């Protein structure tokens, strides 16, 4: 009995390793290219590993004033839009989890539908809207767009969590003389920390990775966020693939780590009640 069991586990492990290797292979190419000196980018046939490892590519990128400007834009836009998402989603999610009111179903429905619409579909409308408001090329436009499109996920995930907190806890707090706001702040929110962390990380990453709206609205090179900025390392005129990928590694490593933290909650939030 034990023999086939061991063989099966071994086969599964091999399959798992193969899967990991194939998923990571492109990103390994990215990392190794980021470590090549310029001259080695143009070798035929291409080599996977650098001949001389040029770690200073990363320093070049980090000390590049343009890269710093993009990084700053990304940080400003992602942080501000995440803050707005949390401030708006928390009360909305709490209220819909605790109260039944006319239009509640319609409200939740609308929230769900917005999640299906990437800003991509509406980008022409968004552009016209901000053009008419004279907000093209401003952080405000990008922050508002990101906040609006990430709100749905945050409301759904928080609402599900608030609904799972027993009412008795809040009633006990009320008996002890806590007001509504105090109950929310000192009882409900601390309990909902996992959901808040998930919503925060998700909103931050989504804004951090956003591309099409930034590409459309931010024509001023200094205000571009990372996603748009780093593509200028490789154009028809210059091809600094090593710098592009060094910058990419810097941009995605923190995101992947954060993402790993919330992985198990993501499916719940994104499928919004579909898989249970």
């Amino acid at each position: 009995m034990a023999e086939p069991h061991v063989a099966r586990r071994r086969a599964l492990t091999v399959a798992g390793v193969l899967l990991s290797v194939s998923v990571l292979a492109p990103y390994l190419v990215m990392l190794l290219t980021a470590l090549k000196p310029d001259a080695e980018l143009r070798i035929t046939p291409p080599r996977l590993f650098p001949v001389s490892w040029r770690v200073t590519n990363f320093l070049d990128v980090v000390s590049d004033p343009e890269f710093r400007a993009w990084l700053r834009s990304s940080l400003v836009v992602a942080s501000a839009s995440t803050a707005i998402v949390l401030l708006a989603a928390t009360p909305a999610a709490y209220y819909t989890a605790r109260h039944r009111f006319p239009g509640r179903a319609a409200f939740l429905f609308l929230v769900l539908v917005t999640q299906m619409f990437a800003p991509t579909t509406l980008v022409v409308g968004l552009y016209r809207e901000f053009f008419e408001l004279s907000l093209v090329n401003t952080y405000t436009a990008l922050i508002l767009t990101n906040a609006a499109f990430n709100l749905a996920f945050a409301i759904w995930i928080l609402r599900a969590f608030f609904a799972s907190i027993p009412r008795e806890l809040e009633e006990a707090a009320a008996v002890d003389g806590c007001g509504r706001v105090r109950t929310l702040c000192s009882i409900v929110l601390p309990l909902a920390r996992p959901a808040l962390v998930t919503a925060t990380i998700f909103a931050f990453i989504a804004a951090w990775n956003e591309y099409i709206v930034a590409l459309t609205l931010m024509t001023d090179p200094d205000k571009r966020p990372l996603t748009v900025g780093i593509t200028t390392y490789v154009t028809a005129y210059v091809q600094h693939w090593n710098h592009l990928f060094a910058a990419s590694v810097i941009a995605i490593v923190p995101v992947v780590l954060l993402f790993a933290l919330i992985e198990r909650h993501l499916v719940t939030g994104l499928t919004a009640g579909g898989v249970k």
Partner: protein
Amino acid sequence: MVYPAIVLVRTSLARYSITGRHQGWVGLGNYARLLGQEALPTVVSNTIVWVLTIVAVTLVLSLGLAQLLNARFPGRNVVRWTLIVPWAASLIVTSKLFVWIYDYYFGILNGALVGLGVLGGPVDWLGNDRTVMSAMIAVGVFVSLPFTTYVLLAGLATIPNDVHEAARVDGASPWRAYRSVTLPLLKPALLVATALNVIYVFNSFPIVWTLNDRNPGFAHDTMITYMYKIAFRSGLRDVGLAAAVGVVNVALILVAVAAYLRTVNWRDAEA
């Protein structure tokens, strides 16, 4: 969220100069002009191929991956964790990465295939009309796998273990048990994964935008990049016409959303 949609519809009913000045209302004129666009049939068929192929291939592969990652073996969590990378990395970074991997002269793909003797000479994956769509679809599948696999894993987690045991006791072969027990129970998760993937893949912009960058015209565009080029890049710079494409896209997604909501029956799920 709703306002840009209104602006989009309004924009689709007007004519604009290339600098964005409103030049009067044209009613449904933009839609009529859209139907007359030479590229439209190509773009529509590209979109259908793009969405159907990616979703179908992704689902089949993800079913296998979910089954693998649902089994117990040492290091499973590490494997699950690596699967996150293409999901978390920004699409534009992954797209640029594949432009480099597919590169005619210096790309590692040609290097490896020619080195192994699979190909006699390098292939211009992104410049050749016959390969560019498949090359883009491969990237589309690659980035869709993690999310889909995770949804299916969540579905598998809801299937109680005794069901599998009962099938085994009844003498069902593993494949038979999978087909007649696991798959039917996985149906809700599959439907959700399908519907969401259709929406995400339809909306996908960076892959086609980046990998198809070198090719002129609209021969390999989907509805989304077609709309974008009309509005902001091509010689047309025609915001009114692009908005008309946008409205059509919104309508198509609404149909997909309606199908999605029907399948998940969201009102029940909520209770």
